[in-house]
């Protein structure tokens, strides 16, 4: 009959009360018999008996599972108390929810992006090797095929090495023609990663040889979407760039090598054998092509440092042996593979983590201040309870029950906020953040949030609880304000409030600097006109168009048809577009030393490209239809290349060599355009005529259409025109030039919005905190104000008195904030574009803003203080 227990217990409690009452009555009757009056007898009986309430409670406790049940009772009492003070409760929960929610969301993101283990065996032993050329602009070019073989055969630190390279193909013969991303991987890759196909098998080493490499592994996603998860896909043949390949297996869905951190659209859909082409392996072509990634698994006893040292030795050996000289010298770098995939996101995440921690500190300080203020408001209540027999540990326990209940509710609210924030983050976050779509609130982070919230409230609940349990009952009951004895508490509250202001100061400065840098970025010229321009890509692959002359004819025909679309004024083509893809070529100026190579960005463009893009031609002429295959090779350079290589000279007519493709004459200089991102300066660039030059990227092309009608709506019309010429041409990545700019700015605007939001929340929380402290102060000193006014102080003097307290807090806060932000802004430096961390305007605006907010927050309590009725206050005294 376990469920009857509470009922039986209730009866037991009644019995206890009754037997005590019987006891007292009997005693009183005895004493009256002894000759006392009734009143005397009652007093004497109670005196001899002791504290009735306390004894009843002790007797009841015998029947309780004491700890558990009194905790339960305390929590119930705490809940009732919180409900009775809705303003305090809401302020506290709001603060905790924001602080904890924002932290849970940001740390979940960081946990997923930075600390998510790669789906390979022992990923911390996997390293990536990449070389940089001694020219500073060419970092991480990968390695060349022969260098890979040297590193592979000569090292002693890796148990296995593998090579990979990303590429892409036209997939035809299964629905609409599609452009798909692919990776070439050596046969050793899967054993190295310790991954096996979920269907079929890995490439054999024999298939990793040029000529016998027509085999392919499919991604789980491609197998699902394109082949309906057909179980008999292994052994079937698919068409890539008009060539048949045999499917040997399907990889599991978790396999994303080599771009583990890349967004969905960039991940490989198929993997093919590396199978180095024979010309790459001929000794003359040792440094012809880099771009191969080398991945190695460290032996159990080898360290990253050892690997780096050994790679340096190997590189020095082959550079000596093959006579690397001048600008072609390489230096190898060894990274952890897992670091490499998230490298670009790291500064952003660290910035977010720091600012969200600031927010958490503010929220914590706010909760502490609210609890302190509430404690002082309850001094009298506690005094009464002490006077009627409550023990001090009991009171402390009750206060802690209240703050931990707050903490618990706060963390629930915080988790709800976090869920909302994560959903928002996935929706609005930049796609350049790797693994953003997989961000989930991890149990560990959840536990962290709970612990954080409970610790915050317990820690900050304990101080007021301790103080409360030590109030002197008589003093409080008499109504005397303990102004003097409470100085310490006030100083604590003031410094907590100042700290909040200081942190809000730091966040506001950071937000301001980012905003400043963002506007700088938008104001800096793009170099091209992003308005009214639409681009779409296609590929004329070599198998389908083996003859370049024929391809030229089709391309020109297409350009002609597209120009005639209504609302289109100019159409051109380019192999590479600014802010979307890049390619570099090595060149040597005429008459320069044999080993004096330099790198430049390169794009193959059609005549009219500069007009269609809105790039100014500063000097010389554009390509024309007269620049054809066989005529003198010509090139247009940009201003950056002109500045660097022809200072004070006329570049027109100068010549340079590009590998074995010939000597090019410069015919024009074009304006600078941002290539990789808006915040990097334009690198030197060489434009070549796509109808004159054949290269590895010929056939890969983007159409640029300019005109009123240019936009995504035009895509069906474009498709109709393109497919009327060739039905097998895939059209992909349709985008306006404007969207290229906003994509390039996505990470920045995201950081800006997030940090701005943090700063605003911080300001809000800090103002709530100040309001709490000043209100508390006014409550404490209300009778003092009454006395002052009775002695002749005016209302405005009282108002000023209160406001000056607020101002003092703001001043201290701003001073500390100024010092803190001097350190904190250095963290921002990498995210700033042409903005100094020391920004005088910002250092004026932010303190001013904080002062206004603080004064506003102190205004309401100050008015209450000034409205004190002196008579009323004095009567209470």
């Amino acid at each position, binding site marked *: 009959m376990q469920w009857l227990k509470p009922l039986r217990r209730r009866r037991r409690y009644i019995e206890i009360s009754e*037997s*005590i009452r019987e006891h007292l009555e*009997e*005693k009183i009757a005895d004493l009256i018999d002894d000759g006392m009056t009734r009143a005397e007898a009652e007093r004497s009986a109670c005196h001899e*008996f002791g504290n009735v309430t306390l*004894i009843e409670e002790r*007797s009841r406790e015998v*029947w309780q599972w004491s700890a558990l049940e009194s905790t339960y009772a305390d929590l119930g009492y705490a809940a009732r108390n919180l409900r009775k003070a809705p303003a305090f409760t809401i302020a506290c929960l709001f603060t905790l929810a924001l602080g904890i929610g924002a932290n849970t969301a940001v740390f979940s993101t960081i946990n997923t992006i930075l600390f998510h283990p790669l789906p390979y065996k022992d990923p911390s032993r996997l390293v990536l090797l990449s070389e940089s050329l001694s020219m500073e602009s060419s970092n991480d070019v990968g390695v060349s095929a022969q260098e890979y073989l040297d590193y592979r055969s000569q090292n002693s630190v890796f148990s296995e090495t593998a090579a990979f390279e990303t590429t892409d193909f036209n997939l035809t013969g299964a629905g609409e023609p599609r452009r798909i991303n692919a990776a070439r991987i050596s046969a050793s890759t899967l054993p190295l990663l310790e991954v096996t196909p979920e269907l079929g098998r890995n490439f054999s080493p024999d298939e990793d040889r040029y000529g016998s490499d027509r085999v392919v592994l499919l991604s789980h996603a491609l197998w699902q979407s394109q082949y309906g998860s057909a179980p008999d896909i292994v052994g079937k043949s698919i068409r890539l760039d008009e060539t048949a390949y045999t499917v040997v297996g399907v990889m599991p869905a978790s396999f994303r090598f080599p771009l583990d951190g890349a967004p969905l659209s960039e991940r490989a859909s198929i993997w093919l054998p590396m199978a180095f082409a024979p010309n790459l392996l001929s000794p003359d072509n040792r440094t012809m092509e880099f771009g191969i990634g080398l991945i190695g698994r460290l032996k159990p006893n080898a360290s990253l440092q050892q690997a780096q040292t050994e790679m340096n030795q190997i590189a020095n050996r082959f550079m000596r042996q093959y006579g690397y000289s001048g600008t072609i010298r390489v230096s190898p770098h060894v990274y952890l593979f897992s670091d490499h995939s998230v490298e670009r996101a790291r500064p952003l995440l660290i910035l977010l983590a720091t600012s969200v921690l600031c927010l958490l500190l503010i929220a914590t300080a706010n909760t502490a201040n609210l609890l302190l203020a509430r404690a002082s408001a309850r001094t009298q209540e506690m005094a009464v309870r002490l006077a009627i027999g409550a023990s001090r540990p009991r009171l402390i326990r009750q206060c802690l029950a209240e703050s931990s209940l707050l903490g618990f509710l706060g963390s629930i609210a915080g988790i709800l906020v976090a869920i909302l924030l994560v959903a928002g983050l996935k929706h609005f976050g930049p796609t350049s953040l790797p693994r953003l779509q997989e961000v989930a609130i991890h149990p560990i982070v959840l536990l962290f949030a709970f612990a954080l919230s409970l610790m915050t409230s317990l820690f900050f609940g304990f101080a007021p609880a301790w103080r409360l349990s030590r109030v002197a009952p008589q003093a409080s009951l008499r109504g005397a304000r303990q102004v003097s004895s409470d100085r310490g508490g006030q100083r604590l509250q003031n410094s907590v409030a100042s700290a909040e202001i200081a942190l809000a100061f730091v966040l506001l400065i950071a937000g301001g600097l980012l905003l400043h840098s963002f506007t700088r970025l938008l104001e800096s010229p793009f170099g091209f006109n992003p308005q009214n321009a639409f681009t779409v890509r296609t590929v004329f692959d070599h198998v389908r168009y083996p003859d370049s002359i024929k391809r030229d004819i089709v391309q020109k025909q297409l350009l002609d048809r597209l120009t005639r679309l209504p609302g289109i004024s100019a159409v051109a083509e380019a192999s590479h577009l600014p802010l979307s893809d890049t390619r570099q070529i090595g060149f040597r100026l005429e008459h320069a030393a044999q080993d004096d190579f330099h790198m430049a960005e390169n794009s193959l463009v059609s005549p009219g490209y500069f007009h269609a893009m809105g790039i100014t031609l500063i000097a010389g002429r554009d390509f024309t239809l007269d620049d054809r295959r066989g005529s003198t090779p010509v090139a247009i350079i940009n201003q950056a290349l002109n500045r660097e290589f022809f200072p004070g000279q006329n570049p027109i007519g100068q010549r340079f060599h590009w590998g074995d493709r010939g000597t090019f004459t410069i015919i024009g200089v074009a304006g600078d355009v941002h290539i990789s991102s808006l915040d990097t300066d334009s690198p030197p660039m060489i434009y070549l005529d796509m109808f004159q030059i054949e290269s590895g990227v010929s056939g890969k092309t983007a159409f640029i259409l300019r005109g009123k009608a240019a936009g995504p709506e035009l895509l069906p019309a474009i498709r109709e025109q393109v497919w009327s010429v060739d039905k097998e041409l895939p059209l992909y990545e349709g985008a306006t030039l404007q969207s290229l700019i906003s994509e390039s700015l996505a990470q920045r605007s995201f950081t800006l919005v997030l940090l701005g939001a943090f700063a605003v929340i911080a300001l809000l929380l800090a103002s709530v905190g100040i309001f709490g402290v000043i209100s508390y102060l006014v409550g404490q000193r209300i009778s003092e104000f009454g006395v002052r006014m009775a002695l002749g102080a005016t209302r405005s003097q009282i108002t000023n008195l209160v406001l000056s307290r607020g101002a003092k807090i703001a001043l201290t806060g701003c001073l500390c904030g100024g010092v803190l932000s001097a350190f904190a802004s250095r963290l921002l430096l990498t995210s700033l574009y042409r903005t100094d961390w020391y920004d005088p305007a910002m250092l004026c605006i932010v303190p001013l803003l904080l002062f206004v907010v603080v004064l506003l927050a102190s205004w309401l309590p100050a008015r209450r203080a000034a409205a004190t009725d002196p008579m009323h206050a004095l009567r209470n005294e």
Partner: protein
Amino acid sequence: MDMRIAQDIKAGSNDLLQIEEGSLYPALQRLLKAGFLKSEMGLSARGRSVRVFKLTPAGRKRLEEERSSFEKMFAGINRVLTVAQS
């Protein structure tokens, strides 16, 4: 009906042992819970109907145990003190 208990302790010890009457209550509740006592309605010396506490057989046994162990301890202490005196 523990008013008498307190008085009996006081009287039985020749006023040597005095206890605050109220402090008996938690102790009585503990004995009740352990099953050494039972409570039932009875009559007080003044003829009122009140709750009275009675020892259960288990309680009586425990009392015997406690008393003998107390006597042993007391005898021990007594012997030690006698030796120390001589």
